[in-house]
């Protein structure tokens, strides 16, 4: 690569970094502004918005509600997704391509369309809007990500590992539990974090399938409609920090796990 290209590339890179981070930084800065109006310049600073957020029972319970939904939907998608991945990977049978296609489809359908479809379907089945419906929709939406990540990992598991386990006396179930599953842990963990964040972040499905109790994104949306305020920035900043911490921890954990077992 010549010098000109290198300079150009680094310019593009830094432009991208600015593009991604400047809005976030502005959002965080405004959350400390001692005034109700969002905008610059910031003349005086305060923690008031944060103390307000942590004192606001509605925000806290909404936050908890979102976390519960994220955890439940992730648990379901991980079990179902891993199951499908194990059934599909490395096997050839009639209709495999169709099953794979159907499995991945929910990830490709636009959120608004699947949300409306779920809403209609839920009413048809007599499922009340609320936590159950949201968990269901999130789980279905997230399964494809689990399937893809787990299948990718599974395809790198040497066949001889399972044969060695069988050879040493393990029946197929024990071989799966003792060899395949531990091998999949980094992938499952990675997929789980991704699912948690997707669910926590989701607005459209939660909005269409929710009952009276809003999830965090829905609450923020509701608050936005009644006027912008740095309180929203404070809520978003807390959410940002939490998701970043979870993401970074997961990344480090999987890396350590890989290092230990793969050298």
């Amino acid at each position: 690569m010549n010098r000109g290209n290198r300079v150009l590339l680094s310019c593009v890179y830094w432009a991208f970094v600015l593009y991604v981070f400047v809005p976030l930084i502005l959002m965080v800065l405004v959350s400390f502004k001692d005034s109700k109006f969002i905008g610059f310049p910031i003349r005086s600073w305060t923690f008031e918005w944060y103390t307000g957020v942590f004192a606001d029972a509605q925000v806290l319970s909404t936050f908890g509600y979102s976390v519960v939904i994220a955890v439940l939907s992730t648990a379901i998608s991980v079990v179902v997704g891993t199951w499908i991945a194990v059934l599909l990977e490395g096997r050839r049978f009639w209709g495999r391509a169709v099953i794979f296609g159907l499995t991945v489809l929910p990830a490709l359908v636009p959120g608004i369309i699947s949300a409306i479809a779920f809403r209609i379907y839920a009413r048809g089945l007599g499922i009340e809007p609320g936590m159950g419906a949201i968990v269901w929709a999130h789980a279905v939406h997230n399964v494809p990500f689990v399937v893809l990540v787990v299948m990718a990992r599974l395809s790198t598991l040497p066949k001889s590992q399972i044969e060695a386990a069988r050879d040493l006396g393990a029946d197929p179930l024990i071989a799966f539990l003792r060899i395949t599953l531990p091998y999949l842990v980094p992938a499952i963990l990675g997929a789980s974090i991704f699912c948690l964040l997707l669910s926590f972040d989701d607005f459209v499905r939660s909005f269409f399938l929710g009952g009276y109790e809003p999830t965090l994104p829905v609450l923020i949306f509701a608050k936005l409609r009644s006027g912008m305020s740095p309180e929203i920035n404070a809520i978003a900043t807390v959410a940002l920090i939490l998701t970043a911490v979870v993401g970074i921890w997961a990344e480090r954990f999987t890396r350590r796990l890989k290092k230990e077992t793969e050298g």
Partner: protein
Amino acid sequence: MTVQDPLVRIQGISKSFGAAVALENLDLDIARGEFVTFLGPSGCGKSTTLRILGGFQQPDRGRILLDGEDVTRLPPEKRHVNMVFQDYALFPHMTVRQNIGFGLELQGLDRASIKRRADEIMSFLELQPFAERYPAQLSGGQRQRVALARALAPDPALLLLDEPLGALDAKLRGQVQQELKSIQRRTSKTFFFVTHDQEEALTMSDRIIVMNHGRVEQDGTPEELYFHPATRFVAEFIGETNLLTGKVRGVDSDAVVMDWCGQTLRGHAPAGAPRTGDAITASIRLERLGFHAQRPDTPNALQARVVGKTFLGSRMAVDLEVAEAEGARLKAYVDTDVGQSVGEAPVWIGWDTDSMAVLRD
């Protein structure tokens, strides 16, 4: 070859993959305590045989008897047979101790017995210092030993080894060959070793079975195979050889008399001796050709010119052209001092009847 009370009896095993025939009606007995090697090029059926013995593949036809019991349809976990895999297949998330204990655990042994047996096998294979390490933290040779320890731990009746030295570098491989042979002697277990490396086979085996195209080419001790190859394939696959094609002049009690480029030669007769007039091939190993200043009194003697020499260290490769026969060439290995002493003048080459094997086809 039939054996009294064999450990393994393979009866008429055949296996095809689509149109490709991997094994054709294989019959084989393996005695207890033998180090048997299946030798052949890739695709000869040796690995298929191993996988059928391990239970990873089902034969299309035939039976496998282990200790007199039909195990043909038993899954791998129900067979008293363990395998050392080509890539070792160590479990990456388990320590050396846990890897070795895996088979013991599944045999239903209690904690204390598992520990005792694992310690025993680890000290036997000098793996104690690595007991708490993960496979990723071991060298290739150490991994190979762990794989062996893991397979030996449940005390199998038969140990299968699928080219387990392929991943080691040349120097280490020689060392591990010695080690493996000595482990086999000390445990007096039956080892069933698969390789495409003839040198490996010659070094370690009590018995070698040479396979080609799903059939047994020859079955015998390393010495038999090397000095008395039965077929052209075996003669060429194991070691280097001179192949002499000619016609049978006559057959007497222990030798075939043949004509090669106008020379009369005597060779070791194969089973089912050929008849006079048959076209045949004989094989003579390079180091079996002796150099003499005078006509030697060996049954076979020729005068030849040296047309090329290659220095190989302790010995030399000498290319020879037989004096009275146009285009008749031989290659010989001689000690370097002998090789250096021969020059332009013709030399006498001599060898015994027994040194030259007349081949079966």
